[in-house]
């Protein structure tokens, strides 16, 4: 029986990437080929050929997908799944020393559920408890693999900043004005303070960088000075100053977005994405001029005061001003149907289906700097693919299969078929445990 269980677990792990041909599908490439009816050939984990007619390699597995839709794997630019032991280091205002990479939890069932919703890549962010939060990175949803194997290789790492109500923590005993319950309140308690924390941190980071640059220069001259102390907190900000780390800023209001742009430009770095940015439409021109992207919600707002002046046309208006826009989940449940979030953009703002789907595929890929390898169905890119049984942005469509790097990680039929086996195994273990408990061995405290 243990064997069966082991077998089931092994069967869950995807097979090695094989050569496959998905044929007769409606392919929404999100690339230069647009939408066409035809085939996609996957070889060695990459997309080898696409077109209405393709050469079928010998020995390839044929997937007949007549009437079905194939899209690039969905990319969520803002997620908090797959972490162990908390997603916020909320005790301090600058927690740039912490890193999501250290706490990746490949066993989080949310990964599998996201996968079943067509998500193949997610940007795992630190929470928004502090002005400067922790280091972040994108993961591929390679369910069944180890933590290290989930990491999106070669992707530029990021860092989370947060503005507004969350970092000033109004009402939270951990800081801000809600200090009544705590002996020591955490600075800052106002939006002014949030800006100050960020600027102050970069003053320190510049000093730190200068120390290291001076040291590096001496070493280059052949001297052997004692190196400066490595400070993980400032090290991450030094990487921001050097352009080696993307800044993702949690924000809502137009004024704080402008504040952040000024603070970044004064300090010589760029904001890669404004996250949420529900008032982004008010300052779209300025965001576009700074060169930042926006990752927002489709139609979710008014859940707090600073989210009150949002409109569902945000994504469309920003796009029209030349901003790269993605739609994100920020939530394990919403993450399972980002396809329909994209679909809403067709209603609000009149986007066409390619533009709408781009907001959960190629656009987040561009925001995360991974569009050379994912985000669209193009020859040479990673074979991260999702097969739907109908139009992918319809509420009624279901994900049938998901591939990452050409390996199949989700199969709806198999998932359903496996459920009975798992239930039976669960019942067996429960029964075994109960019969064990009936034995006369006395357990203290039971």
């Amino acid at each position, binding site marked *: 029986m243990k064997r069966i269980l082991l077998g089931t677990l092994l069967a869950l792990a995807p097979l090695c990437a094989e050569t496959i041909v998905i044929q007769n599908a409606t392919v929404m490439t999100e690339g230069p080929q647009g939408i066409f009816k035809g085939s996609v050939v996957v070889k060695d984990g990459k997309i080898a050929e696409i077109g209405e007619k393709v050469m079928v390699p010998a020995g390839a597995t044929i997937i007949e997908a007549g009437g079905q839709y194939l899209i690039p794997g969905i990319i969520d630019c803002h997620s908090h799944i797959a972490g162990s032991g*908390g*997603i916020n280091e909320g*005790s301090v205002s600058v927690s740039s*020393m*912490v890193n999501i990479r250290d706490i990746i939890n490949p066993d989080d069932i949310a990964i599998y559920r996201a996968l079943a919703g067509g998500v193949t890549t997610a940007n795992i962010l630190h929470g928004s408890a502090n002005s400067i939060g922790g280091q972040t990175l994108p993961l591929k949803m390679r369910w069944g693999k180890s933590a290290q194997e989930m990491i999106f290789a070669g992707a530029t790492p990021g860092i989370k900043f947060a503005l507004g109500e969350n970092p000033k923590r109004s009402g*939270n005993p951990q800081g801000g004005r809600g200090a009544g319950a705590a002996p020591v309140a955490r600075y800052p308690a106002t939006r002014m303070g949030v800006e100050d924390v960020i600027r102050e941190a970069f003053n320190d980071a510049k000093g730190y960088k200068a120390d290291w640059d001076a040291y590096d220069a001496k070493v280059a001259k052949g001297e052997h000075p004692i190196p400066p102390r490595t400070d993980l907190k400032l090290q991450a900000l030094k990487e921001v100053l050097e352009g080696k780390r993307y800044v993702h800023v949690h924000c809502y209001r137009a004024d704080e977005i402008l504040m952040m742009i000024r603070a970044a430009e004064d300090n010589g770095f760029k904001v890669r994405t404004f996250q949420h940015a529900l008032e982004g439409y008010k300052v779209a021109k300025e965001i576009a001029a700074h060169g930042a992207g926006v990752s927002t919600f489709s139609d979710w707002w008014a859940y707090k005061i600073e989210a009150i002046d949002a409109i569902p046309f945000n994504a469309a208006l920003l796009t029209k001003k030349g901003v790269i826009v993605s739609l994100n989940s920020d939530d394990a449940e919403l993450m399972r149907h980002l396809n329909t979030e994209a679909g809403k953009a067709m209603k609000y703002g009149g986007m066409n289906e390619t533009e709408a789907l781009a907001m959960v595929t190629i656009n987040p890929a561009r925001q995360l700097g991974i569009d050379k390898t994912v985000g669209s169905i193009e020859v040479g890119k990673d074979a991260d693919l999702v097969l739907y049984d109908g139009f992918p942005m319809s509420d009624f469509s279901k994900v049938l299969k998901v591939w990452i790097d050409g390996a199949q990680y989700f199969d709806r039929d198999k998932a359903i078929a496996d459920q009975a086996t798992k239930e039976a195994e669960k019942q067996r273990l429960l029964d075994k*445990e109960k019969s064990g408990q009936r034995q006369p061995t006395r357990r*203290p405290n039971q």
Partner: protein
Amino acid sequence: MKKLLVFSLLWCCAYALAEAPSTVAIRNAKIVTVSGPVIAKGTVIVRNGLIEAVGESVAVPPDAWVVDGEGMTVYPGLIDALSTVGMPGAAPAAAAGGGRAGRGSTATQTAPAAAQTTPATRSWGPEDRPQTTSWLLAADELQAGDRRVETVRSSGITTAVTFPTRGIFAGQGSVIDLVSGEKPAEMVVVPAAGQYLSLGSGRGFGGGGGGGGFPSSLMGIIAYIRQLYLDADHYKLVKDAYAKDPRGMQRPEYDRALEGLLASQRILLPANQLIEIDRMLRFGAELKQPMILYGAREAYRPEAAELLKKANATVLVSLRWPTPPARSADSDDSNETLRTLEERDQAPSAPAVLQKAGVKFALYSDGTDAPRDFQRAVKKAIDNGLSRDEALRALTLSPAEIYGISDRVGSIETGKIANLVVTKGEIFDDRTQVVMVFVDGKKYTPEVAAPGGRGGAAATAEPGGNQ
């Protein structure tokens, strides 16, 4: 006459006071040396706290007190590879949270002297050295009068590697022999056995009470540990340069937290789940510290054993096997995951799996060190595939090797410390009776275990606490 002597040895001391004949001969006993073959019938001579001789035909010295071992088996004294016995404030109640949720918990219970040195003020970053008492040595904190010493010894445990367990860097453990003496110093075998680390259970908003400061999440704790080792490296660099030539150089500030790190020859890191094993193996390698993983609840998973083998890791497996939550008759079982159920079912097979995979491991009590609890816990590992010999080794020679003390304890060999367990019946068996225990050559008669188990340690929360 001899019989009478044995009889009196067994019964004269109601309260397990050590008797101190300087020379003892146990003869006609089965001797399980662990390091060598079993001697079916032989003699062990104990003199001045050491094993003077062992063998089939060893002459009994004329001055020896003779124990007739007919029908008895002599084993090496058992070693609890991770314990808190003898540590002040580590008594069952006070250890609750055992360094896990115990951040800044100085205000609770009878805080040990050690913890009082950590101010309860909120930490604003790594520079405040939060939850750190790395400079502590268990040997300096020992309480000779700890009643647990006697209970634990009654299980056949003669040696414990006992640790301070509060905070992230709790301090160094010490190897102690469980003698009941006036002076704690008599117990100490090795004062510095390694730095005990724990990773807390915060959720990022300072949960878990205390000051609520940094670090409050797992990633915060990991970042803090990483920073402290970077600081220790730098500290050493600067200190060495200053020692070499202090002229014209600002003197480095003394930092006892870093001194504690630099003084530790190995670290103990917690790892129960497969992902934690993976994570901590990587982390320990990154820190470049010789490490021991403790917990190992999911080590039964083939992937885990494979990782451990590949890393050539050393593991301490907790004997506190997971137990089902209390269920009412009408409770809904379905909210427990298959994985949780599987873990409960298979955790006790972890030692057998590690054994098969060739991973270096030892067992530790994790608080299940009262005689009946301990015996049952070890038996469970045996029932789940661990051979008796290996179970014994995992509680004797293996932990001795892990801590680098196999030249003095862990087996019955000439010249080693006379730590012995004498039983009627096979050790770890249900009906087996521990007849006497020798620690440093001193003979103790165990507490008479109440039938069905005293459960004295049932409520202890322990280092590496598997709860």
